[in-house]
């Protein structure tokens, strides 16, 4: 990935400074347009001017980005009644994340689904958004999507005759979703994570159509996130609250993983079916799995080359 597609690193004051300082004329023109739109749509003029003045994330100077994050923190702290932090954690050098999922251990309990919802501030209802979809499959058919359902609801899992395959963003090495985005609102970071700038996405849903794994979810309505359940430790490209009309998906919990922690789904899994680590470190858990077990990738015929591996440990 080119430097252009990287989030600006906040500590580095020299990089890209002043790149977004708009000329006075530009500002006046945008302000005038903003006032007109505000008058027509009944929105606050300040908000509209700010929206129109916004540039692509990679064109923002670190100072400007910091200012933007500060504003978001203030806004959400007031809205949710708690001290919300919005980071912009850069990818760590020398790290390329990989994920392993042990299909022989997964019992289909969906604890990962709900831990993810809680950690990542998804909309709780109308509509409920989940980034992980656990598919129940028949043992007699193996991994076959025409014999799979996410809507199973027994008293106890696992059910006889079935096995379970959780699917989430596969963080492809050749992501079809970033390719089709008409506005570069989504890209793959150097640590392997495919991210979305929710404040740049136009909601055209090309990426949802292009994703072979159903990983991308659209905010069909204003997200419903009760203040009491809001996770205040957030990242701009990760779990911060999303607006209506944009696409979101799993980011390997980058607000955690980029600080050296496990994603929430790995932590919660009661049977240890989920493995996570740095593909560039031969001692990491994921590399150990790849060394000792045989892994496979989902829909390998599409050549998306996921960084998400399935395996059977037993």
């Amino acid at each position, binding site marked *: 990935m080119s430097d252009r597609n990287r989030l600006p690193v906040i500590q580095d004051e020299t990089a890209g400074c002043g790149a977004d300082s708009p000329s006075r004329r530009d500002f006046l023109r945008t302000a005038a347009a903003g006032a007109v*739109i505000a008058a027509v749509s009944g929105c606050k003029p300040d908000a509209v001017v700010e929206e129109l003045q916004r540039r692509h994330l990679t064109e923002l100077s670190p100072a400007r980005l910091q200012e933007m994050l500060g504003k978001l923190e203030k806004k959400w702290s007031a809205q949710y009644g708690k001290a919300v932090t919005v980071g912009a954690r850069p990818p760590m050098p020398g790290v390329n994340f990989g994920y392993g999922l042990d299909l022989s251990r997964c019992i289909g309990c969906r604890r990962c689904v709900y831990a993810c919802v809680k950690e990542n501030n998804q909309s709780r209802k109308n509509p409920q958004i989940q980034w992980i979809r656990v598919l129940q499959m028949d043992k007699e058919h193996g991994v076959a999507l025409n014999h799979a359902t996410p809507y199973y609801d027994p008293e106890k899992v696992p059910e006889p005759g079935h096995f379970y395959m959780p699917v989430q963003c596969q963080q492809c090495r050749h992501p*079809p979703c970033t*390719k*089709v985005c*008409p506005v570069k609102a989504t890209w793959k970071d150097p640590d392997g994570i495919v991210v979305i700038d929710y404040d740049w996405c136009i909601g055209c849903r090309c990426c*949802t159509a292009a994703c072979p794994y*159903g990983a991308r979810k659209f905010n069909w309505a204003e997200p419903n996130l009760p203040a009491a359940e809001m996770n205040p430790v957030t990242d701009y490209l990760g779990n911060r609250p999303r607006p209506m009309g*944009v696409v979101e998906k799993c980011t390997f919990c980058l607000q955690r993983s980029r600080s050296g922690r496990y994603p929430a789904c790995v932590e919660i899994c009661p049977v240890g079916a989920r493995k996570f680590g740095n593909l560039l470190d031969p001692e990491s858990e994921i590399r150990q799995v790849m060394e000792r077990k045989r892994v496979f990738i989902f829909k390998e015929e599409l050549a998306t080359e996921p960084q998400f591996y399935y395996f059977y440990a037993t």
Partner: protein
Amino acid sequence: MGFGEFLQGAGRQVVTGGKAYKAWVAVLVAMIGIGLVGYSRQWNQGLLATNMRDQVTWAFYIGNFTFLVGVAAAAVLLVVPAYVYHWKPIKEVVVLGELLAISALIMCMMFILVDMGRPDRLTHIMPGPGSPNWPQSMLSWDAMVLNIYLILNLVVVVHILYRAYRGRDYAKAFVVPLVLFSIPAAVGIHTVTAFLYAGMAARPYWNAGILAPKFIASAFCSGPAVMIILFQILRKTTAIEIKDEAIWKVAELMAYAMFFNLFLLGAEIFKEYYSHTEHLLYTQYLWQGIGNNRALVPYAWFSLTCSVAAFLIFVVKKTRMNWKTLNLGCVLIFSGVYIEKGMGLVIPGMTPDTLGEIYEYRPSAVEWMVAIGVFGLGALVFTTLVNVAVPIMMGTLRAKGAPVEIPGAGH
């Protein structure tokens, strides 16, 4: 006296018309009103007001968009036979075709706009304030070519009409190259739109090389169908002369296009059913349904029946030259292609979804209302444009003191 005066004259003509014209405009304005009511509901609730969901993420709006790109492309492509067969009113065919293209393009853009989750961020796709993802994203290409095509058609039409209004012939050195360029551009907009779908490996139903040629073939059916009906109305209500032979020729060309379209359809169906891979599911969903999920099946067969019947009508000389059957054929071909290129293309592409789930999509009330509004707007644009263009072309609407007969305007 200049361009401003021309716009004023055109503006006066927009509101000039008989009772039938005014009644028709009133109907269209009412349709737009319905659309506004629907869209305001969608604006408040979000796209949840539609029946689209994560499983079927594009649907009725995008289907209409795709169909209308075909109409926009084919209207201009009529210039080719008009030129090859030396039709007398070639200038009129060009102007009317481009007016239809302009109206269809406006509808295309409206359908994209109403489908967007964040229409307020439209600037993000524009070069300059935004960050268009060239050359990778087919949608950013599509936005560009559709806009270029729209501007191209506007420039040509406005130039011809403005000159005629002033009693002068159009500048050949300016118009002819632009019209010639608009022919590959017409093919281009439809090809890029086909690539938008065909480029998605995640959706086997779309991921076929046959898609772009099929788009072009079906466009050659739906666009001219509108033109044939329009030619007949204009012949009756105005002094425009359009020969019977010209209309019959268009109908004959439509028969060939429909034959090619049906042939490509048959080739696809053979491949899917004979090879019988997991990809068959999507085709099966359209033609047979999967289990109890049969929402599209009646429409698919209705569409095929319309297309085959229209093909027969247009290929047989006797029915092609009979006005009643000809017009029936136009309606049939339009309906057949509308279903095939709209819902018949978009929905099976996403049903079952990429993880095998079947979500049966049917448009919601809001989607119907918004679509009615967009079609109303497009029809209103077309009606008023034609109402201005025809008297200018016939010499009854002129700037003060401008000659009625255009000097040197032989064809």
